[in-house]
């Protein structure tokens, strides 16, 4: 859509309904996929279906089809985001504090379920517990 021009509603509404049917079909596939096919690749398959839906929305509902300048602007900006992601993924892949971080290692926090424990028992427990998130 390049200009502020008038359109014929009856002629163009069909396109919107066709995209709606496509999106509904893809949503149905989203629901049945984990139970019917590619069960070992659910995450990747779901994201791929999402990407196809996103493409339909972008091209037809957001009027990107036929847009040149805005299309390249969006592609360039999304490309920058992808580069940023790649750098971050590479960086966190060699995270030097992997064993110390709460996020990258499962924290091991002992819980005192026995509220009646004496102070002496509690102090003994503290002495033997060097770190709260040791691997």
């Amino acid at each position: 859509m390049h200009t502020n021009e008038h359109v014929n509603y009856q002629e163009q509404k069909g396109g919107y309904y066709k995209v709606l049917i496509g999106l509904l079909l893809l949503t149905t596939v989203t629901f049945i996929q984990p139970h019917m096919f590619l069960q070992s690749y659910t995450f990747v398959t779901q994201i791929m279906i999402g990407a196809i839906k996103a493409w339909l929305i972008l091209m037809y509902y957001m009027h990107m089809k036929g847009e040149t300048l805005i299309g390249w602007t969006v592609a360039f900006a999304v490309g920058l985001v992808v580069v940023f992601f790649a750098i971050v993924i590479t960086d966190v892949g060699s995270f030097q504090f992997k064993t110390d971080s709460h996020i990258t290692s499962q924290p091991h926090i002992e819980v005192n379920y026995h509220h009646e424990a004496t102070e002496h028992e509690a102090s003994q427990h503290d002495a033997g517990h060097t770190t709260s998130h040791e691997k």
Partner: protein
Amino acid sequence: MSHEYVPEIAIDRDGKKHEVQGWQGDFYGGKLGFWLFMLTEVMMFGAMFLTLTYYFTLHHQDFIDASSHLNRLLGGTNTVVLLFSALTMGLGLLKMRSGDVKGAKLMIWATILLALVFLGIKAVEWREEYTHGVFLGLDALQSGNEHSRPFGQILFYGMYFTMTGLHGFHIIIGIGLMLWLLKRINAGKVSTEHHILHFNIALYWDLVHLIWVFVFPYFYMIGAGNAH
């Protein structure tokens, strides 16, 4: 109600009236500017998806277990509701461009109604999770107590409430924008010839839909094959 376009008027020192030539007259510029704004939204949600993916690689099984407990029926219903709302918004814009301003207003109201349905379903879903003890601030999502969920699940639910909450906030903003759009249409500031505001708000609504297209499988579907 008349829907004739009423231009913005500025009055100079001598009392002469001039029609303001602003962004309403620059359709392409207005569209390009709004796309740049939407790219900042992509950056914000993109960073969240990146974080989510990283946590998923670290705590794979916890994420799948937590996902399998989410209510897919309600989440799926919301997916369909948003899908139809994108249609009504798109058809509304088409009606505006074709000269049917009254029809366009009806479609905007239909979109607002669907947005409210979405928020209502989301509220029911969050309430259900709260009654099961899974909510921000409750013991299940805090480390170091007897009710604590596994650490990966705490991360999953933290991201789930943050991202669906932020998405819900965008829905509320969208409703506000649509009400403002209706007000501008009634005031004659948006018309068939000057509909860039309508166009951009429709773009915003499609972006909100687009984000949900990825939020839904990321949270609800990754654990769908897990028997529970």
